[in-house]
């Protein structure tokens, strides 16, 4: 008689992994909801990259509040943080992001390491669902901290579709 010892593993194995849609962006169809080629409802919008850039001294923190295009649906993060050497060395940083109009803190509490929200330089992190910045003048607030002991240039970019108000 197996009892729980046999039932539990079978139950666990039938769970749908919460990471089922978190597939690397190798395939377009794997980027968003399972089996959907692209997030529905954003057709007709225009791609947009919205970035903020900082010149940060060693271990300095700065923040900025800046507008994003009207009807902006956030899909992806990417970041670039380098020192002044040649070739440039990628340096660590931390980041927090806030949707001003909707008063939504994407990263409440402690800031997240840049590599854990935007990947290393040359990579992107995609949301499995778009985030809509609502209002007539949508704004994002970004706070970044240089974790290195050298000065860096840091650019944090949001990628999304502009000009679409989701239904």
């Amino acid at each position, binding site marked *: 008689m197996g009892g729980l010892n046999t039932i539990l593993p079978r139950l666990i194995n039938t769970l749908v992994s919460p990471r089922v849609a978190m597939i690397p962006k190798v395939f377009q169809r794997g980027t968003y909801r399972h089996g959907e080629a692209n997030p529905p409802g954003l057709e007709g919008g225009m791609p*947009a990259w919205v970035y903020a*850039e900082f010149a940060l001294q060693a271990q300095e923190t700065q923040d900025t509040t*800046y*507008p994003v295009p009207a009807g902006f649906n956030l899909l992806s993060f990417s970041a670039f943080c380098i020192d002044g050497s040649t070739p*440039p060395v990628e340096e660590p940083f931390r980041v927090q992001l806030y949707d001003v109009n909707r008063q939504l803190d994407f990263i409440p509490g402690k800031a997240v390491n840049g590599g854990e929200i935007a990947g290393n330089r*040359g990579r992107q992190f995609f949301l499995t669902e778009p985030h809509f910045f609502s209002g007539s003048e949508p704004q994002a607030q970004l706070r970044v901290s240089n974790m290195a002991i050298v000065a860096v240039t840091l650019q944090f970019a949001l990628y999304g*579709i502009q000009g679409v108000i989701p239904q």
Partner: protein
Amino acid sequence: MSSTQIVKVPRVLIVDVVVAASATLTPGALSIPNDADFEWWWLSIFRTDPRLKVLITESATQRPFIYSGSPQTPGGFLGVFVDNLAGLVSSNGEFPIAVPYVMPASRSYQHQFSDLSAAQNTVQVAYHGFALLQVANS
């Protein structure tokens, strides 16, 4: 009575630019061929040095693809680092536009590259997608 249908044909459109050392806003244009609209799905970029920025604008409407709301941008508004735009071809493959964007036939898209590496920077931007060819049903 004849009718037409749209046939999707894979197509890659290229912007090739050599950016001189420390040059700013070096132009390069993406021209959509006049035989069909182009449905844009993917973007990939090769560059010599990552310290390269780009601005992209639709010429007919002057609508920008790149925005900076940050007043702290050092050196002025020169655009997004190309690695933030499209990822790194050597490690990452291509960047999915995620929602396909149709670029009308014959339209052009202005690119402006700025080098921050103080050395010549060779860049190629590849737009991957489909030509939306209109063909007659036989």
